[in-house]
């Protein structure tokens, strides 16, 4: 069973890029609309919540400037994640400080308080959040990419500089850890 995200019912990213390079500006907008929030989630998962939009914007700036170098044998979204990860690293280097790896603080989670949502699902959400915070950086990155974005292991491997098999192990270890902590809570 395939593990890559398909775009069966909509135009593929590669087709959109082709259309954009042919002059269809709306195709570029569609690309941003399709992936900006995913990149933002990834940036947040790396612990850069305060500068999320700036980093997402810089990611697309870099990507669009180098769009001709994008190879359609990998997914556009994964390519964006790779760029975003580099930008986060650059940003951290430039500021000469390393934040805590994940800052999924309480006040970050409740953007718009919903009492009903809070009553029903907040406890479990908090458990999962705490469990994710307890993962190692590698586990968290692999888990985020795989579990929340559906990125295939081979593409995660390229991003984190590891093998697909090792990423599978990281993912399952992360999953096991989260399950244990959620169950124990």
């Amino acid at each position, binding site marked *: *069973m395939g593990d890559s995200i398909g775009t069966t019912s909509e135009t593929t990213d590669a087709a959109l890029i082709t259309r954009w390079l042919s002059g269809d500006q709306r195709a570029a907008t569609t690309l941003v609309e399709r992936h900006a929030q995913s990149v933002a989630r990834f940036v947040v998962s790396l612990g850069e919540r305060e500068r999320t939009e700036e980093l997402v914007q810089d990611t697309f700036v870099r990507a669009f*400037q180098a769009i001709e170098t994008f190879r359609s044998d990998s997914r556009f979204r994964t390519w964006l994640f790779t760029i975003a990860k580099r930008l986060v690293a650059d940003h951290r280097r430039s500021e000469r400080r390393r934040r805590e790896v994940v800052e999924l603080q309480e006040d970050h989670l409740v953007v718009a308080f919903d009492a009903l949502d809070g009553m029903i699902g907040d406890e*479990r959400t908090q458990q999962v959040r705490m469990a994710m915070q307890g993962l190692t950086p590698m586990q968290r990155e692999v888990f985020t990419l795989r579990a929340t974005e559906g990125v295939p292991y081979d593409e995660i491997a390229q991003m984190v500089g590891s093998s697909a098999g090792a990423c599978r192990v990281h993912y399952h270890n992360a999953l096991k850890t989260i399950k244990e902590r959620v169950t124990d809570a």
Partner: protein
Amino acid sequence: MRECEDVTMQEALPTFRAGGLDAAEAEAVRTHLATCDACALELALLTTARAVLDRATPVVDVARITAAAMGARTRAERTSVAEPRVIQLRTRRWWGSRQLLAAAASILVVVSLAIPALRGTGHGPAVDGRLDPMVAVDATGGQGGEAVTPSIDLAGGLAHLSSAQLETFLKGLDQVEATVRAEPVTIAFPLIDSPELREGRPRLAQPPVTTTQRDALEARVRARMAMVLQRQLELTDEQSRRLSALAQRLEPRRRALVAEERAVRAALRAQIAAGDSARDAELTSLLNRMIEVQRARVLLLETEQQELTAFLTPLQRAKYLGIEEQMRMRAEQVQGRPMPGQGPPPGMMPGQGPPGLMRGNPERPRIELRRVPDPE
């Protein structure tokens, strides 16, 4: 609870959750989930994990990001157009004026024959036939609330101005800053006084700059414009802050309108160029869209004025409107475009094409001028 032994199904869950399976695969997973509590629980956990990140992630401004990314690309294209032709010129001692000396100080001087197009009417830029969206990069970090200095964008953005033009524009603002003027406000912009400019030929410009330099320059211009407004309107810090916030909040809509107008104008131009084969229905539709854009622009102006009433006096609002209009016109002026009542812009013959549809020629070659030592 027993772990699921169907590894294939387990491995498919993240992709299933992300909507990446085809119909048959997805159905197989659903069937499995109906009988496997372990996988159902795991899927719920994955969904919760995604929700955790969703709730921690701010919603990003897609329009702003799109405009910034496309604008940056356009700038990159402009500075990396086919290798410029190099012409060596000898400097002459009659380069006496300070401004010309300043221009000549750069080792590499680029004469850009490609005059970027600006708006046709109102606030919107005209179409130059290429992707030329607004730039939304705010190097002051205004979006994140870190900016202390208020920042005002030129209506429709700064992307239309080359870096040299931005510098010139900035000098004009600096001059205003240095001069306390009585009403009415008059902003004088020291154009680089060159024969080329006076004759409507291409201007001297600075060498290509990096994106970072460009962003910083745009940020300076925005901050300076905010400062000018603050002084001319005699704004309090609170008024200045609110004006800046309002300008930034409305800017995405303004940019979207500009982009829309740009697209409509491009399509109209294509239809007009098609001559007899132009499709009436398409033309009608485009003209209707153009009217809608103009209507939206008026609505935006109305919205802006309404919001300004909350913190500006009528006199300040009137001044703001006037200064905004003046800045926009001066921006055109530094691009070498005629002020109202003057002739057509460089690169466009009188009567060439419908208003706002044929401005400049992006395909023209760039000629690079290198300064060489003056022989003694």
